[in-house]
């Protein structure tokens, strides 16, 4: 979205363009239901429309920038109860996804987290299609 001086409230609380700002209420230590938007890479990974996820964070995308973000290639693929961004993915990219929660905390030997499985598969397919460049 070409905000060259985009800032994070945690490291630059007085900056003018706080694209990442303090959440209205901290999600540290909480589990929240995330609604997954159909038609996204994220949805392909989950195969479900909701997921309970564990959060440890207090900062997120500033809703003030929602419109600007929407206009660009970054898509919100998962939202919290009030529509706040919880998962974003980059359209036009093979696999570029970020979550506000920590899928690694709910992943286990018997049941790896679907987003982590999809990511590992994407890296494996990158590896096999770039053998010549190694």
């Amino acid at each position, binding site marked *: 979205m070409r905000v060259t001086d985009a800032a994070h409230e945690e490291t630059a609380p007085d900056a003018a363009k706080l694209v990442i700002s303090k959440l209205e209420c901290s999600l540290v230590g909480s589990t929240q239901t995330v609604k997954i938007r159909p038609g996204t890479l994220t949805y392909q990974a989950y195969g479900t429309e909701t997921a309970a996820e564990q959060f440890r964070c207090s900062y997120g995308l500033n809703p003030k920038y929602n419109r600007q973000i929407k206009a660009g290639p970054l898509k919100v693929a998962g939202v919290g109860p009030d529509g706040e961004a919880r998962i974003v993915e980059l359209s036009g990219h093979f696999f570029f996804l970020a979550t506000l929660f920590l899928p690694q905390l709910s992943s286990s030997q018997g049941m790896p987290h679907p987003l982590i499985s999809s990511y590992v*598969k994407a890296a494996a397919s990158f590896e096999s299609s770039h053998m010549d460049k190694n």
Partner: protein
Amino acid sequence: MTQPVRIAIVGDYNQDSHSHVATNEALKHTAESLSIPLDYTWLPTQTLSAEGAESTLRKFHGLWGAPGSPYYSTDGALNGIRFAREQGRPFFGT
């Protein structure tokens, strides 16, 4: 396929961080359950703000942005993320 998939974890590893340890464990058990041989390496953010970061990053098939902000070097972390975006590497930020 004999060579392992190489994942770079961009972040400042702290062995006392539950989330960091869980990141390693998740990669290990996921790779195992998919029967995909996988190696991961943590790349401290300060090393990614220095010269030569790109040739380091080029060796990996995927990048994982680790939890734990603020990073020691925000620029380093952003360099890693930008590399993944521009060079088409799978990227997962948590």
